[in-house]
């Protein structure tokens, strides 16, 4: 008993020495996992170096993980109680992560004044059940990418597109190598009037005739031998780089490679309007976000959020924009200089935010199956969309444990 008292006394005395001193900052170490590569990785490293210079007590370790392993790796580690402090990933991971309680809500860390500088749609997208579960770094969507030496006048609607493509395709040069992946072509489904979910997050893809119209449109493109319609990213990509595709659908991440291969011949513009309804192409708009691990303590969380605030500051996002073509979430970043990014920004205006609810995971494969089976003449558009509706809803019910 005496010993304990003595120890307490000593501790009290020692601690009194430090009262009034400025607290020496504790060394903090943060880990960030991402799948950035190339120019974006360079910007990340520069930003980390800059941040560590400003805050010498902080060490930041970054780990690059292959994109298709990142979600799984994080899920496995975080579920076992570990994982990095910060994760960089697309907003559509939020639903599952939040449901499994792997990421921390961030509402308390960002005030209204701070949020005022960010694109409202992006901030809106990262909210799950009313809480902010991530912070947006950049936005992405697909648009028309064209080779200026093969395309002089851009088509206004899909009818003009067909005429134009028919005049360009010759030999092994194609007017349009159309990616029929659902992510890439979803813009025409929404332009045709299709909706994914109702207010209860149940599937409604077969409501109305939007899905049928869009599938019929794709089927018509595919039956035109002057088009290549394939769910094949690599093919569209390679052909465009080799100058054998005049137009493709792709996102800002690809532009760097294209300008390396083709120089200033690369142009970006919104996709042509869907002629049948007169509606513009409405691609998914998704954000790349910073997530904070739910397993870490409050001090770590605070440090992680401080670093995130730095990463989304005007200066850092400006660098991401200039060097890696990231379309910034920060409205203060000056984007006027860049015509290519301008094309994506223009397209984004008619886009729809990618739903982040876990139900979205049930949509991809059934919709792809609908597209593939129509293109392969295995199903009529109406039947294909009905099948997709049933499968999506079954998957949703199963994931809800019904």
């Amino acid at each position, binding site marked *: 008993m005496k010993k304990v008292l003595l120890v307490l006394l000593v501790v009290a005395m020692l601690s009194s020495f430090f009262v009034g001193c400025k607290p020496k900052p504790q060394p903090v170490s943060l880990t960030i996992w991402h*799948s*950035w*590569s*190339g120019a974006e*990785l360079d910007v990340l490293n520069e930003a980390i170096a800059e941040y560590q210079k400003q805050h010498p007590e902080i060490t930041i370790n*970054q*780990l*690059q*993980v*292959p*994109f*298709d*392993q990142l979600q*799984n*790796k994080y899920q*496995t*580690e975080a*579920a*076992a109680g570990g994982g990095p402090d910060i994760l960089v990933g697309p907003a559509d991971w939020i639903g599952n992560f939040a449901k499994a309680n792997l990421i921390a809500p961030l509402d308390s860390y960002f005030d209204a004044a701070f949020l005022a500088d960010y694109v409202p749609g992006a901030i809106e997208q990262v909210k799950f059940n009313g809480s902010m579960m991530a912070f947006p770094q950049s936005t992405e969507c697909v648009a028309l990418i064209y080779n200026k030496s093969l395309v002089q006048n851009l088509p206004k609607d899909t009818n003009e597109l067909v005429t134009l493509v028919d005049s360009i395709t010759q030999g*092994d040069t194609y007017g349009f190598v159309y990616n029929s992946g659902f992510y890439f072509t979803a813009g025409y489904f929404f332009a045709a009037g299709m909706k994914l979910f109702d207010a209860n997050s149940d599937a409604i893809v077969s409501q109305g005739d939007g899905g049928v119209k869009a599938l019929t449109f794709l089927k018509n493109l595919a039956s035109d031998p002057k088009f290549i319609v394939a769910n094949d*990213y*690599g*093919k569209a*990509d*390679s*052909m465009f*780089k*080799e100058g*054998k595709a005049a137009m493709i659908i*792709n*996102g800002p*991440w*690809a532009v*760097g*490679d294209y300008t*390396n*291969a083709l120089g200033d011949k690369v142009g970006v513009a919104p996709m042509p309007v869907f002629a049948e309804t007169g509606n513009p192409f409405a691609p998914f708009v998704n954000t790349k976000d910073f997530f904070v691990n739910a397993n870490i303590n409050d001090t770590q969380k605070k440090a992680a959020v401080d670093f995130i605030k730095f990463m989304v500051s005007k200066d850092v996002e400006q660098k991401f924009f200039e060097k890696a073509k990231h379309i910034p979430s920060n409205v203060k970043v000056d984007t006027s200089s860049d015509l290519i990014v301008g094309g994506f920004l223009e397209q984004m205006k008619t886009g729809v935010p990618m739903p982040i609810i876990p139900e979205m995971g049930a949509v991809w494969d059934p919709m792809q199956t609908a597209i593939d089976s129509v293109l392969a003449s295995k199903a009529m558009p109406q039947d294909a969309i009905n099948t997709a509706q049933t499968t999506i809803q079954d998957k949703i019910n199963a994931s809800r444990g019904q």
Partner: protein
Amino acid sequence: MKKEIKEKLKHLYLHTYIIFWIIIALFPVLWIVSMSLNPINVLKPTTLTLIPKNASLSAYVKVLQRPYEAYPVPFVQLLFNSLFVAGGTAFLSVALAATAAYAFSRFSFPGRNIGLILFLVTQMLPATATLAPLFVILTLLHIRNSLWGLIIAYASGSVPFAIWNLKGYFDTVPKELEEAALVDGCDRNQAFLKVILPLSVPALAVTFLFGFMNGWMEWMLAWTFLTKPQNFTLAMTLYNMQGQWNTPWSQFAAFSLIISVPVMVVWFLLQKYIVSGLTLGAVKG
């Protein structure tokens, strides 16, 4: 004279047949070579040429200089890790399998057939849902985030094949040799170490090679378990080159070849063992 001509004709026919298969075996590899020389990173070259326009070796240089883009781990370090993991896997699986195979080959004991099947059975459960429990067990053993953890996990995948192959070979070693050793006063362990093992070098070499290849090529468990770039392996960093959308295909192809070359060299060196040491079952003799 006539017999000689007949043999020549037969050989000509056999050469044609074999060369046909060699062309098929080599074609995809040549495609990788062509991809690795292409300066514009295309996955699907639209024309068939072995040496593409403006061919260059820059992809090889880039890969050797910076194999893991995000962190300056030298190529030699990755190579060392890969050799360590592959060698460790091979060594551990041979060591574990040799004794077990000896028991299966030489003793008749209750549960022998079941046991042999049980080892094979572990290969039959598709590991789709077991990654998380494996993660937990390796974490509990404190080897999850290390090369040792990989070695043990990979070895558990190689051991069943190793046991089968070694048992098959031990079966072909005449029992009389061992019995002679036993008569001379050796015990079972000595007979195993001094008679059976030295006679089984070809099979041990092949088993080693199989374990080595398992450890050399695997990336999926490695990417799930490791978090320190200093521990990464070549196969992991090769896989890492595939981006969500963009992959530097030329570098990917160059790296693929760099990774495959050591394996091919080992193959070539072990050629004579591979043929005589791969005896999954008993060849009577």
